[in-house]
């Protein structure tokens, strides 16, 4: 038998679900109108409106947030095209279902930043099989030949820029420690490859420590703190991204070694630029998040209009030293 209180709670629970659904739907509307611009108010011929699915690996990742900023800015220029952004929450399986939905819906093109290039193979096959043009962004697909184009940067190059500038700062000799990204992620593999390529040219630079901190600032801080407590003699730390470089910097400051150790990362996030300006991070390497985002939207629009698109659109990495901080900070505004 249900008590009065129980029944009341049931009603409240249903009301909450209904409310959330309404809120969810209405936010969906607003987000697609902002993407569509003003045109959506007078679109009676919705059937003619082209739709592009944008599959993003993780909305909560810093870099991807800026990349989407670039995408949304560019998308506003094309009010006749609807761009539907999907968050895979860093789960390859979720992304697979999103791609299946896109295929079922019959979208006109798909922009995809794969969660995992290996796991993405079957879903790309599926979309290509349904003749949906695919634009990969930031991470090159294993079956890239099935896609129209790849918009992104060369991760190996970023590792090379990072390590060669650090080697110059060290005059070609010294002990370095490396903070790696999550093992198996495409940028981790290729940034490390770039670093190792450069290290071969510098026999007097020794890698005395090498750990993964999973791209996270707090984990990098924990790892670096332990390094500083060890007997290791570290002259420089190179990190696969700025978040980990900042973590190492905070640990170095704490250990009173901030001035003695050169630390650098990749991405040129706004916060990293601040630290480079203060001279606390030696330098960073700019990966043009917004540029990649804009490039992907541009490529999708060209595909829809039947214009030719290059097989690869490479947005170069750039070295950011103290004197260039202002120039790069402007890119985020």
């Amino acid at each position: 038998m249900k008590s009065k209180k129980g029944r009341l709670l049931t009603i409240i629970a249903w009301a909450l679900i209904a409310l959330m659904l309404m809120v969810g739907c209405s936010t969906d509307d607003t987000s697609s109108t902002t993407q569509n611009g003003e045109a959506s108010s007078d679109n009676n011929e919705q059937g003619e409106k082209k739709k592009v699915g944008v599959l993003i690996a993780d909305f909560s990742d810093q870099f991807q947030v800026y990349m989407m900023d670039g995408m949304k800015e560019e998308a506003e220029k094309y009010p006749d095209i609807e761009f539907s952004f999907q968050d895979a929450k860093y789960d390859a399986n979720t992304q697979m279902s999103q791609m299946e939905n896109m295929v079922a819906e019959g979208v006109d093109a798909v922009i995809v930043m794969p969660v995992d290039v290996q796991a993405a193979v079957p879903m790309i096959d599926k979309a290509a099989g349904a003749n949906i043009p695919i634009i990969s962004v930031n991470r090159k697909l294993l079956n890239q030949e099935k896609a129209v184009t790849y918009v992104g940067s060369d991760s190996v190059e970023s590792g090379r820029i990072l390590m060669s500038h650090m080697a110059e700062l060290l005059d070609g000799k010294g002990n370095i420690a490396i903070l790696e990204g999550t093992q198996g992620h495409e940028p981790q593999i290729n940034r490390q490859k770039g670093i190792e390529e450069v290290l071969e040219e510098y026999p007097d630079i020794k890698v005395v420590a090498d750990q993964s901190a999973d791209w996270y600032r707090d984990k990098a801080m924990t790892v670096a703190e332990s390094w500083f407590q060890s007997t290791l003699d570290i002259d420089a730390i190179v990190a696969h991204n700025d978040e980990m470089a900042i973590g190492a910097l905070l640990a170095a400051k704490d250990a009173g070694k901030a001035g003695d150790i050169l630390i650098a990362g990749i991405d040129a996030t706004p916060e990293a630029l601040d630290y480079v300006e203060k001279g606390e991070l030696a330098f960073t390497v700019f990966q043009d998040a917004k540029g990649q985002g804009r490039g992907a939207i541009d490529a999708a629009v060209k595909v829809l209009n039947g214009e030719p698109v290059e097989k690869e659109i490479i947005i170069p990495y750039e070295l950011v030293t103290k004197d260039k901080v202002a120039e790069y900070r402007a890119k985020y505004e």
Partner: protein
Amino acid sequence: MPNSQKSSSNALKKKTIDSQSFQMFFVLIGMCVIMTILYPPFIRMANLINVIRQISITAIIGMGVTMCIITTGIDLSSGSVVALAGVVAASFGKGDYPLILPIILALIAGAACGFINGSLSAYGKIPPFIATLGMMSIARGAALIYSDGRPITGLSDAFNFIGGGYILGIPMPVIIMIIVGIIMYVLLNHTKFGKYVYAIGGNQRAAVASGINVKKYLVIIYTLASVLAALAGIILAARLNAGQPTAGVSYELDAIASSVIGGTSLTGGIGTIPGVIIGALIIGVLTNGLVLLGVSPYIQTILKGVIIIAAVLIDALRRNRG
């Protein structure tokens, strides 16, 4: 068997505390000895302080989670509450706001999450596992919305002092952990509230029958647990000089692991504050030691799992014997 030497009202409980925490304490000491033999610099004061500071966040969350586990519940939302409190604190941790404002607002945000957890579990009769699992997702989403998915930076030096400062050579997070530990110890061992927490965990029906307002206390317990998680979030944001909506992922699991390694029983009624701190230290020494030795992070993960299982196994074997 009650220990006649103890004059406490609850001798049986005290005895279990002693034996469990004690065993784990010796495991901890043993690990430290082994580490020192393998790598002598491990035992340096600076490194030990470093380890204690690293575990302070986990331990603070763990103390709250332990309370939930003692009542046969669980709190899976702590990691997300850490992130939510972190971004709320960070947004008021810059500019000219007085330092108390970010702290109070972040703790209120945490309390709200915990109040909902507790109410859903106690009055909605939703298993805490599910209620807090839902909150794990909701609080993370709230943190992302609040911060627009971006880290909140540019925090004041005064705010960053909470995570990075020292008083008399002791890091602030450690000082906060010790204060919280003492308060929680007194609360659980020397107050009516503490007695009720153990009573609810020991036998919920008996607790109801003896006139304890179990529902009310469950709400208080979950609220307190989330307040502690929020406090950990403030410390983390101050330590990282940024409120990050993605911070604290899987911190709840580390907190639960610390609690379990420290002798908290998932069947309820058993668990102590010193136990959680010892549990957190065991994980901390392991992580620190393996990094110092340059052991692969994959093996670290496996060892952590082995220790958790071993701790629960010891607990189960002891129960069967007794």
